[in-house]
């Protein structure tokens, strides 16, 4: 075979290989596409029908934003949104503090009963929401904590949030925060803390100058997770709120009982958007954290 022939044969073969590769890539990306479609089609439909100019959620009748306007004018929805935000913020702050301390204790110290603590700490993640909800309900009832509301007033908003709901949310959020923070702690080299102590930093300053800044991406990630879970929660809120208290998901649930309207689609779309923003923030933070490390907070 002459050199030219050989070259031609080789190039034909490489062209075939390229074609094959492109084909299989196409096939796989096709599968991927179908998978995503399966996951996201309902969401896409939900979003589309929130702009549907009809009470029906089955037939398209033109574009409108009136359901968003109606939603904004619905005082019940707005109040339940405030309730949700308030419960989420307060329970996140509390569970971030307790969860971070728990993670530090589990990862850095040895103490009596640690093994049991270790198992129990993650229980709320594993047990079904409904079981936890009933547990909490019985606990609040029997213990006499009851469902007393915490009355808060700000920016002309008047809320009456039962302590029991906040406690309930803290109860499950601690576990999630602890898991996330602990994962970050486990990655962290303990020798860095020794280095700080070697450089005359007492334990307090070691924590704030070294441990905490390095832990920050984990803490923020845990906080975002807790916030999202709290905003999303229906079952535990429903069972621990007593009468007449609505967070957004609980409100939506009671609206659905009277039939699904595009207003619900509008609320859901906004919640979806909100979650997406949170996820984006947490992604950006964690990526920044792994490449650069957070900046030193000035004390």
């Amino acid at each position, binding site marked *: 075979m002459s050199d030219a022939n050989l070259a031609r044969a080789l190039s034909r073969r490489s062209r075939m290989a390229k074609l094959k590769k492109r084909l299989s890539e196409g096939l796989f990306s096709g599968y991927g596409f179908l998978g995503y479609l399966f996951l996201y089609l309902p969401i896409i439909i939900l979003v589309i029908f929130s702009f549907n100019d009809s009470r029906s959620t089955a037939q398209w009748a033109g574009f409108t934003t009136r359901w968003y306007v109606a939603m904004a004018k619905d005082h019940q929805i707005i109040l339940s949104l405030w309730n949700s935000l308030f419960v989420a913020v307060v329970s996140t702050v509390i569970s971030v503090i307790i969860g971070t301390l728990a993670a530090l204790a589990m990862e850095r110290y040895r103490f009596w009963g640690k093994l049991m603590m270790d198992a129990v700490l993650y229980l709320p993640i594993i047990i079904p929401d409904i079981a936890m909800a009933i547990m909490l309900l019985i606990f609040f009832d029997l213990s006499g904590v009851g469902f007393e509301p915490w009355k808060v007033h700000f920016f002309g908003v008047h809320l009456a949030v039962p302590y029991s709901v906040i406690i309930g949310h803290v109860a499950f959020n601690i576990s999630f925060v602890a898991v996330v923070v602990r994962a970050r702690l486990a990655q962290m*080299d303990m*020798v*860095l803390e*020794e*280095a*700080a*102590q*070697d*450089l*005359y*930093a*007492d334990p307090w*300053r070691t924590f704030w*100058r*070294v441990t905490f*800044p*390095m832990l920050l991406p984990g803490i923020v990630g845990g906080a975002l997770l807790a916030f999202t879970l709290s905003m999303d929660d229906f079952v535990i809120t429903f069972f621990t709120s007593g009468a007449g208290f609505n967070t957004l998901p609980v409100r939506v649930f009671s609206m659905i009982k009277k039939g699904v309207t595009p207003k619900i689609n509008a609320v859901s779309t906004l919640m979806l958007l909100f979650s997406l923003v949170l996820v984006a923030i947490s992604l950006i933070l964690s990526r920044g954290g792994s*490449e*650069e*490390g*957070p*900046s*030193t907070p000035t004390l």
Partner: protein
Amino acid sequence: MSEAYAVELERVVKKFGEVVAVNGISLGVRDGEFFSLLGPSGCGKTTTLRLIAGFEMPTSGSVRIYGEEQGYLPPYQRPVNTVFQNYALFPHMTVAQNVAFGLEMKKVPKEEIKRRVAEALELVRLTGKENRRPKQLSGGQKQRVALARALVNRPKVLLLDEPLGALDLKLRKAMQSELKALQERVGITFIYVTHDQEEALVMSDRIAVMNEGNVLQVGTPEEIYEQPQNRFVADFIGKTNFIPGKVVMLSGEAADVRLEDGTVVAAARPEALGVSAGEQVVLSIRPEKIYIAPHGDKPLVPDADALTHAVGQLQKVFFVGVERRYIVALPDGTEVEVRVQNTDRGARRCRVGDRVSLYWRRAHARLLKE
């Protein structure tokens, strides 16, 4: 003790549960000395360093730094600084912030911190890299930041835990001499942990050889190499031959030993070694201290007649450039390695399979316990 030591350990024991990491060691490190703790992994050298730094508290015994009992002082109250094995630079701080950390903790005025950080970075030749993050530095540069971060505090004693372990061979050699020069310039006492015997020999003023939580021998690199006190030290430092035999005569430092085949050879007894005639011992002879010649020939040295003599059969010869290595089997089967510079013509006449004569001086055959 009367001598003023920089660091003094007295019967220090450290146990982790049932495991004894440090088994009652006593050591004195002199002021301004480059002192190495040398031993295989798990010998307790790093634990010893951590006991001095304050990361571990002794189970019993005393740790003193310039005469002051450290007792249970935490690391941040001790006048020592550490260079860690994998540098342990703070990844969320710049080079300058890393170096300034210790001074900030000591509440040194801002102006002085700035000046001293600049000085320290100049000392390790990293001027201009102040605002880099540790991630943007090479291994050698990280190493130098770790050094600057410790030295900037002007510690009385600098502790180094295998600081060159993570570097590649070439860089390690360069850093060895750089580190030694730096130590001489700043005049600070260095305590250096390493498992690399060559590194310890090259850099140290004195070495403590450790094994299984004990200090086996303390001495200058030459003492450690030429006068090992026991079998472990002789074996761990450099290459050595062990030839079994029985003591037949003892006279001060001199001893005669009968090898298994009946040959009586000359050996030297280390001062501290308590042996008696008739006892089973081993001779430790460095391969470069043995002369080899065709059977019956004398080596070409002036004192050839005063040398002790043994006979064996040449098994193998390896050519390794600067030298040849001869493997000789003694009648009892013990293999002896002999290293000969490539300039020795007499040795070259030995052929594999031949009977050969081995010669050494009395002082070079060290008597050691089995």
